């Protein structure tokens, strides 16, 4: 990274950190949502973007993080931080226990297997008394949006620094090698099973932390909303829109799409979903490799970048 790029990122970080001082309440709330979505997109980026395993199970980590905080605070009357640790622990155990069998599957099969996990978790948690069954849990309210905002921003920063570290470490190179060619990676000495499970767990840790913050902020959760599969679809769309397998792409994707979605639902309330769908379809057709690739190549190619994509993908 060049000096001006680091400067730009730092400036953006300072501007974001200052929002609670100069932004409206609405903006802060929008910010919390967008930041948490960005964390989820970054979490997915580790397993989906860098390792090449399109996980639909990350909403399970999110749900486990939410329930970790809720159970610790409501049932055991422990502080929020302990709940976060408990949620992370649940996510890691889940990632290891399920990752070992599920990560043996490749491509579509992996996606389908993880897709089922969220359904299973909803059913299980609905029957666990400790988790409030299908009624859910109500957390003690904490009316401090700036705090939640800064927490979310801090988490996003840590997630992004982790990914940046990945791109220049042996572990990260191993993950990329697995994505690019798993058999080629294994004969070069990459312990693919271990690396995939570690990537899954790391991805789960960030998703769980985001879930924990969200649960405490919203103060209510039930199985259907905690293990919502559409949340997983959202994080994939955002990561892919921004540029999977890049350090900043998923953040840009999450912010852009959160803003677009917010704008549409305030301007064209009832058919916002339709317009959002159109945005996604157009994005996939014109820039299938995400914003990161768009910025990189459009400087060289100009507008022909779009026609080139349409031709290359035979659309």
């Amino acid at each position, binding site marked *: 990274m060049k000096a001006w790029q680091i400067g730009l990122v730092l400036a953006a970080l300072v501007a974001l950190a200052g929002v609670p001082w100069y932004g409206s309440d609405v903006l802060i709330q929008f910010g919390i949502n967008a930041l948490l979505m960005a964390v989820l997109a970054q979490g997915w980026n580790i397993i989906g973007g860098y390792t090449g395993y399109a996980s639909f199970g990350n909403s399970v980590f999110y749900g486990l993080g939410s329930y970790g905080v809720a159970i610790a605070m409501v049932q055991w009357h422990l502080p929020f931080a302990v709940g976060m640790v408990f949620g992370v622990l649940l996510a890691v155990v889940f990632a290891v226990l399920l990752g070992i069998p599920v990560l043996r599957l490749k491509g579509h099969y992996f996606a389908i297997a993880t897709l089922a996990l969220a359904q299973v978790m909803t059913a299980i948690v609905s029957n666990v008394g400790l988790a409030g069954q299908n009624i859910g849990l109500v957390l003690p309210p904490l009316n401090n949006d700036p705090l939640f905002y800064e927490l979310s921003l801090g988490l996003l920063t840590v997630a992004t620094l982790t990914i940046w570290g990945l791109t220049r470490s042996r572990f990260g*190179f191993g993950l990329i*090698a697995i994505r690019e060619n798993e*058999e*080629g990676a294994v*004969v*070069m*000495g*990459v312990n693919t099973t271990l690396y995939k499970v570690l990537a899954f767990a790391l991805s789960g840790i960030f998703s769980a932390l985001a879930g924990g913050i969200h649960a405490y902020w919203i103060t209510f959760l039930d199985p259907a909303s905690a293990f919502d599969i559409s949340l997983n679809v959202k994080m994939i769309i955002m990561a892919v829109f921004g540029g999977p397998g890049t350090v900043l792409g998923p953040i840009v994707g999450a912010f852009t799409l959160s803003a677009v979605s917010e704008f549409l639902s305030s301007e064209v309330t009832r058919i916002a979903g339709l317009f959002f769908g159109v945005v996604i379809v157009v994005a996939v057709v014109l820039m299938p490799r995400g914003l990161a690739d768009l910025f990189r190549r459009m400087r060289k190619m100009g507008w022909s970048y779009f026609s080139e994509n349409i031709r290359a993908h035979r659309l």
Partner: protein
Amino acid sequence: MTPVLEVRNATRHFAGLVAVDDVSFTLAPGEILGLIGPNGAGKTTLISLISGTHDLSAGEIFFQGESINHLLAFRRARLGIGRTFQIMRPFPVMSVLDNVAVGALFGRGGGQPKLAVAREQARECLEFVGLGKIIDKRADELGGPDRKRLELAKALAMQPQVLLCDEVMAGLNHVEIDEVIDVIRKVRDLGISILVIEHVIKAIKSLSDRLLVLHHGEKIADGTPDAVLADPIVIEAYLGKKRA
């Protein structure tokens, strides 16, 4: 001297098909052993059995006198067994340099944990195979001959003791073949033992110290190149029975 690699009665079934049938051979330190045979003879399967990407149905494989049957593929790589693939497996969106750096980061003895050092080693390997000028290109931008060299560089960066080369010359022209032969000889001069699968008979004859011939999964000949290529059984396997 203990052979670097010893294959004893290696057998592999795929359902009813016997791809490799009771094959035994040894590879001495610093030796170049050519492996030839008609299409479907089981050459690639044999290499996969050694590198561990396929499991043996029966038999045993020894590396420096120790059985490696129970070791997973990545462990065998870390032990010092490197391989190239006939259908090349580069990491397409990574740069040529980083492709090779993966070999240095993992590879023998678990590899080199520092990325900067690994990249430096990768650069040397790329110089060695003659790709020193295009290290910043993306791997999927390379043409056929350069991809073959890249496969070699990736395996070399692992600092292997045994190199298994699966058709590194296929699809190359005469000049390119001679260049690859030179590289393989240079690799041997580093003290690495090499098992090389090849279809270009002229090339393998000049390159190999010894030749091994597979036919329908069975070993039908093993000896010096001249003796093996004059063997009537080998000629029959390649050209069919002479009509009386």
